[in-house]
């Protein structure tokens, strides 16, 4: 193991698994702070010890890494995969499909020198355009240098956009996403199963951001639409998912969609950023565009602690939120499911999922 001296004291550091190329990578002039691992450095106990301090895990030598040594906690670390040269999409899929590629999500990235190969894998695994790290060279030392320089710039310069516009600590964001996905994705599946027609499921995400939930839906069975107030995020989402529709939410907060247009309308940690009148308008609009029998899904924070660094938030307990829903929808909803969430490292259950079914008789068939 080669522990390069850190230029900044950041606590956690990028870990590069260089495998067979450890000598070439150690010889490259990498920015400080990276931990480089060789083939001898990855027995499970030793790997677990190193990964405790990792904020990013880079797979530089994919074929020799012992993926069976990765625990669930390790998969919460943002990953950068360097596609090995000389492999086509078919052989890569055959070797790394379940073991790695299916596990890569919104917070992970892929170094793919070949655009055609990237495009093939991106479509297959629903990766976003912003997850790609272009590389000029196949040489392991050069690739490691590119990745480390990128990570160093991201960690030291707040003006450099992180991958997919992740706010805050990407490690925590990825772990948080996993917790949210564990409660949300079964609800997405339930919405799909409830819709007994073979027509694609019409899904609307309110506050879609850069589109981090788009990959949770099968594009062949779903028509996904995202609406977002921030223009920059709308542009990022469009770049990430060129085949999906993303709209800008205007200041009037009225959705540019017909009544009863969607089978599933959901929002994830959006409401607490808005005061009650805005929440009420958003809820009313969400109810309007949902089809009778369709789902309204909210994953929100209902518990707030003293965090002065947080931007303006408008705390609202679950009872107040439910009262607001009943008010905004004239009680025309039925509670289908609810559960509370405790995020990694938190003592309290702060998140709550509320799934509602919209009542009513469809206006059109």
């Amino acid at each position, binding site marked *: 193991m080669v522990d390069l001296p850190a230029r900044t004291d950041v606590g956690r550091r990028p870990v590069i698994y260089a495998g067979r190329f450890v000598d070439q990578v150690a010889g490259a002039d990498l920015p400080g702070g990276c931990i480089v691992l060789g083939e001898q450095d990855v027995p499970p106990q030793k790997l677990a010890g190193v990964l405790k301090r990792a904020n990013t895990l880079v797979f530089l030598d994919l074929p020799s890494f012992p993926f069976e040594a990765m625990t669930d906690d390790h998969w919460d670390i943002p990953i950068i995969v360097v596609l090995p040269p000389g492999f086509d999409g078919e052989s890569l899929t055959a070797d790394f499909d379940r073991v790695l590629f299916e596990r890569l999500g919104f917070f992970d990235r892929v170094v793919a020198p070949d655009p055609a190969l990237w495009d093939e894998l991106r479509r297959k695994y629903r990766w976003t355009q912003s997850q790609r790290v272009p590389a000029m060279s196949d040489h392991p030392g050069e690739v490691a240098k590119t990745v480390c320089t990128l990570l160093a710039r991201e960690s030291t310069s707040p003006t450099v956009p992180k991958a997919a516009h992740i706010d805050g600590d990407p490690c925590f964001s990825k772990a948080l996403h996993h917790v949210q996905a564990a409660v949300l994705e079964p609800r997405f599946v339930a919405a799909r199963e409830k819709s007994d027609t073979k027509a694609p499921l019409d899904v609307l995400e309110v506050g879609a951001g850069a589109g981090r939930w788009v990959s949770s839906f099968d594009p062949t069975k779903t028509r996904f639409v995202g609406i977002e107030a921030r223009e920059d995020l709308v542009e990022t989402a469009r770049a990430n998912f060129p085949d999906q529709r993303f709209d800008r939410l205007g200041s009037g907060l009225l959705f540019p969609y017909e009544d009863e247009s969607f089978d599933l309308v959901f929002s994830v940690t959006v409401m607490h950023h808005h005061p*009650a009148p805005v929440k009420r308008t958003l809820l009313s609009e969400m109810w309007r565009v949902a089809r009778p029998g369709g789902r309204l899904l909210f994953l929100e924070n209902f518990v707030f602690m003293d965090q002065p660094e947080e931007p303006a938030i408008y705390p609202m307990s*679950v009872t107040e939120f439910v009262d607001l829903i009943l008010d905004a929808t004239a009680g025309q909803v039925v509670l289908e499911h609810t559960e509370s969430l405790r995020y990694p490292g938190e003592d309290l259950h702060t998140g709550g999922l509320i799934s509602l079914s919209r009542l009513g008789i469809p206006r059109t068939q």
Partner: protein
Amino acid sequence: MPRDDFYTPTDIDALRMENELLAFEARYLRGQFRGQLSARVAEYERSATELKNRLEESERRLEESERRLEESERSAAQLRERLAEAERAEQDIALLLQRLANSPFGWFFASRQNFRILEQRYLGNDG
């Protein structure tokens, strides 16, 4: 707590809000459990009624079978008695035929075809 104003919650507020969140979930789960429980109870009651009906039907069929068995046993005893009587009658006939055949008028009876048939049937004589 004000709804619209910027506001920094205290720890007490956070605990109260968590309590509300967990209580809301507990209410939902209790309601769901109650619904499931009622459905289960209804299902168990239906099963119990079905089982009770089956048990009653089985008991009825058992009684019927027992009654038939008793009748059969009674019939068998009657048949056994009748058989014994018939065997005794057969022995009497055989004895009577022997006496008649050995009497001074035995030659007369032997000349009768019907007597010879009876001898053949009960005494096993061929001729």
